[in-house]
């Protein structure tokens, strides 16, 4: 594939060897998200403890972008304070909506910067966001259920 390919090595690595994949106990909330336009799906569990995202696990099927992005997401949010993890997810969302115009911040997004190129392909942005949206949904539910603010 060409140099300007959206398939950066980082993406391919995460796709071939996804991190944190496989559903695990214990968890607070489990969600199931589907991308109706292509049938990609993810089942995702979140555990929140002491204001931290203490675990994320998932299973699913889909294209390389949705699988790799979910793997990168789990690396980025596990162990972070909920607040900070939500900010990271905002940063990723912003990058994805930038139509290739944004220079991503490696300090915040780490491996996530490999998805900058994907933002030029509107049809693939939803793939890259599938796992993130599932995580955000689950986390919001977990925080709400624990009856508290985000701390």
């Amino acid at each position, binding site marked *: 594939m060409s140099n300007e390919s959206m398939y950066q090595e980082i993406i391919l690595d995460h796709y071939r060897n996804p991190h944190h994949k496989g559903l695990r106990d214990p968890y607070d909330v489990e969600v199931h998200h*589907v991308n*109706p*336009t292509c049938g990609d799906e993810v089942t995702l569990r979140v555990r929140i403890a002491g204001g931290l995202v203490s675990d994320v696990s998932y299973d699913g099927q889909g294209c390389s972008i949705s699988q790799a992005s979910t793997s990168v997401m789990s690396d980025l949010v596990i162990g972070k304070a909920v607040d900070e993890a939500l900010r990271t997810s905002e940063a990723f969302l912003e990058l994805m909506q930038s*139509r290739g115009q944004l220079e991503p911040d490696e300090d915040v997004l780490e491996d996530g910067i490999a998805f900058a190129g994907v933002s*030029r*392909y*509107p*049809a*693939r942005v939803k793939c890259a966001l599938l796992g993130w949206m599932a995580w955000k949904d689950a986390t919001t539910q977990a925080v709400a259920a624990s009856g508290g603010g985000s701390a």
Partner: protein
Amino acid sequence: MTAVVLPDLAAGYDVDAVRSDFAVLSRQVHGRPLVYLDNASSSHKPRQVLDAERAFVEQHYSNVHRGVHTLSQEATDCYESARATVAAFLGAQPDEVVFTKNVTECINLVAYSFGNAAPGSPFHLGPGDEVCITEMEHHSNLVPWQMLCQRTGATLRWIPLGDDGRLDLTDLDALVNERTKVLAFVHVSNILGTANPVEALVHRARTVGAFTLLDGAQSAPHQRVDVTDLGVDFYVLTGHKMLGPSGVGVLWGRKDLLDAMPPFLGGGSMIETVQMSGSTYAPAPDRFEAGTPVISQAVALAAACDYLQAVGLERIAAHEHALTAQLLDGLRRLDGVRVIGPETTEMRGAAVSFALDGIHPHDVGQSLDELGIAVRVGHHCAAPVCRRYGVAATTRASSYLYNTAAEIDALLEGIVTVQDFWRR
């Protein structure tokens, strides 16, 4: 994607510069230079609009939305940028803009969507509910509501016309009441030229909780429109009257309403999941764009918006205002001419309808055509207005950004020639 060279009018309104962008304006008709005064019916399109559409079709065309290949991604970009341009033109957000084929479809979309709402939905209508329109509506903002009332058992009411070509608001509070679900009315009348008092009507509709739809077919081409300032729930326009191609209309609606309304046309792209046994629908605007959309027409319409903004809508409005004053003034000086609609330029657009004593409008229109002057004759899709003013038809002259004072003079002279010919 496409570089469009727009007219540079920093130095003032240069109508000749504008005219040079419209190929047809240098045509001869019956051996005379064309004087095109049928703009309320449809406008011509500048080369910038045609070039933008052609460049798109020749270099970036593909179906939109569903593809990952480069052309389909470029086409999607162009189509969605067109949506953003039109939204900005109306002071709105892109996801509040639905592309249709014309303004008639827009109004039917709203009427059918309401008709598809289940009992209990805020959009549902049934016996006892009312839809209110006005006596000056274009058939496209009249027949869809008649049909909706027929289907649902709701009652159609209308605000009558006064003798001065304006709405008679005496009974407004009775006509728009607690039973009123929708108040739909025209911003600027295509037959009378009347500009309606949007604020007063919207205020009354809000008081009783009725949805408002404003038919902007004759306002969007001629004046700056900000849907938030107007305060309506739906605003609709049609591309071919504002330098865009035929085959494209725009429905602007409040996002919360569009997302809550039932779908209208079913098919590809408007769905979320489809099973043989039932389907769920995408959020707006996709929900209302079933099938392959009017892709290159939307791109062309965006170029038309760019063109209008480059010339400047305030300047266009001022230019037309001057031409309308000249025409009304000239008609007043002629014998045997009756203007149908407001006789001054206050609260009025550029469409001027008139009748010549003893000469049938068909003969007026045809005779003017033989002088190269294009005006429209007939009921202008507003038959009840003709009936109200006791005429079978009118002759209508309507100017636009490319018309000149000399053309208005040609029309006024033409009317005299026609009178002489038919009164022999």
